[in-house]
């Protein structure tokens, strides 16, 4: 009898194991499938010319160089506008704001900000940056729009990183007559910087993939040359991908997938940087 109960337990264990493995496969398999499918269909479009030339024949030929550059500019713009505000807000909320209902309300609003659909940010950018501030459909308006969207993430990760700095460090500094701001500036922020940077780069790589918001604040399908000022319109990879996939008849399939590969590689590149920062931070 004891023997059969043990057998039964082994069986349950094996079944549980099988279910867990199946769940993991269910998650991993589609990702692998998408990547393989993408590369199989798109690699023939990849070439030096594809990376370095402007498009011709409405994107059917030539390259995507202006879209790559536009996306890089967007990412930089997003980080330039959202990181300082995000860090300062995060520091204020953790170090200075009193723990009262207003602070809690603000924290809740920030968390909810992350759930606002991106097209809503696009409309916000159109109303505020393009029209009210009269920046026009431009790179800067799009950067500000994406930065507004990224704020939820930069503030949240800054808050969490600042909170994670051990209390002992702060006490050690305060106990030798160092002011609160000096403690924040010289102890808290350096210790929190890997986390803050991680959040910023993730926000940036997410901005790289946004299509809907930039659609209404300045992305163009084809521009004549690269943007020469922040007030120019620009091309961007996700919008380019959308247009060549949905609106250009007779588009070679491998070009679409080629654009997708480049976009994924760029995002992956930044995610690898994040991973490296984390590894380095853990070693300290």
């Amino acid at each position, binding site marked *: 009898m004891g023997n059969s109960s043990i057998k039964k337990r082994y069986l349950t264990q094996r079944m549980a194991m099988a279910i867990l493995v199946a769940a993991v496969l269910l998650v991993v398999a589609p990702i692998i499938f998408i990547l393989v499918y993408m590369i199989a269909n798109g690699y023939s479009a990849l070439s030096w010319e594809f990376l370095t030339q402007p498009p011709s024949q409405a994107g059917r030929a030539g390259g995507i160089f202006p879209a790559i550059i536009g996306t890089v500019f967007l990412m930089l713009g997003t980080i330039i506008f959202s990181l300082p505000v995000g860090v300062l807000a995060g520091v204020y909320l953790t170090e200075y704001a009193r723990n009262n209902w207003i602070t809690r309300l603000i924290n809740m609003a920030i968390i909810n900000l992350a759930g606002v659909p991106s097209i809503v940010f696009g409309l916000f950018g159109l109303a505020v940056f393009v029209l009210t501030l009269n920046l026009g459909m431009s790179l800067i308006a799009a950067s500000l729009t994406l930065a507004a969207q990224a704020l939820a993430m930069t503030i949240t990760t800054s808050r969490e990183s600042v909170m994670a700095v051990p209390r*002992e*460090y702060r006490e050690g500094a305060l106990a*030798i007559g160092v002011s609160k701001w000096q403690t924040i500036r010289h102890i808290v922020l350096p210790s929190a910087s890997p986390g803050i940077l991680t959040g910023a780069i993730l926000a940036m790589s997410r901005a790289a993939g946004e299509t809907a918001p930039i659609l209404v604040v300045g992305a163009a399908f084809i521009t004549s040359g690269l943007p020469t000022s922040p007030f120019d319109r620009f091309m961007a990879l996700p919008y380019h991908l959308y247009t060549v996939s949905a609106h250009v008849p007779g588009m070679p399939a491998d070009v679409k997938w080629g654009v997708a590969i480049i976009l994924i590689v760029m995002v992956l590149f930044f995610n690898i940087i994040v991973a490296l920062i984390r590894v380095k931070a853990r070693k300290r």
Partner: protein
Amino acid sequence: MNNMPKVAKTFNRQYTENDRKRGSLGMKNVNLFYGSFQAVKEITLDIHTCSITAIIGPSGCGKSSMLRIFNRMNDLIPSARIEGKVEFGGIDIYEPGVDVVELRKRIGMVFQKPNPFPMSIYDNVAFGPRRHGIRNRFALDEIVEKSLMQAALWDEVKDKMGQSGLSISGGQQQRLCIARVLAVEPEVILMDEPCSALDPIATLKIEDLMSTLASNYTIVIVTHNMQQAARVSDMTAFLMVDDDHAGRLVEYGETAEIFTNPNNKKTEDYITGRFG
């Protein structure tokens, strides 16, 4: 009273006039509350300058809370509230208008767990002076060397000043933290169970260091280790909680006196190991 810890030295240091000029420290009728909980009740005592005062007592009797009153570290806890008078160099440090940053510069603190900053040994020691405006590299070098020598750490780290302060042993880290405090030239050094995380050899080194430092600094140490209090301190304050869980000063006097001939029965019970 056979099992009482041995007293290694007696309170017989002669003060110079210069010693007396340095900030005198004391509290009068001090109550400390965390919200509605009273942590410390009606404490009155004067700390002797340029000597070592040990605060002893069972766990949770308010020793650390009492220590943190002296450099206003309790300010960091929003619900903390204090009553009574705490005087340092003739001023009440809880008066409005007292510069807490300046106060903490003059009354430094070493913590239970060594807490070097995640930066190089040199930068750890130079941190305070730099924040207080010393930028000259030569002056900083001098302060760092002098502080590390005072903390009896110089010989062990002089060849690895660029290494992380977290890379050295626990005992060395604690001495580094002491050097960090010494670098801002305080008058008083508060130590909150500085050896509780250290092995016996490292503990002995810190104790030797304290004895040396006591000729120039006023040291107040919280310890749960009675032998340590008996070994290093000149004065001993014994704290205990009443039924209301607030810490009270049961007895305060010369260490030799407290450990050989306590006035209070509770003190005697505690130091002979009958409870705690």
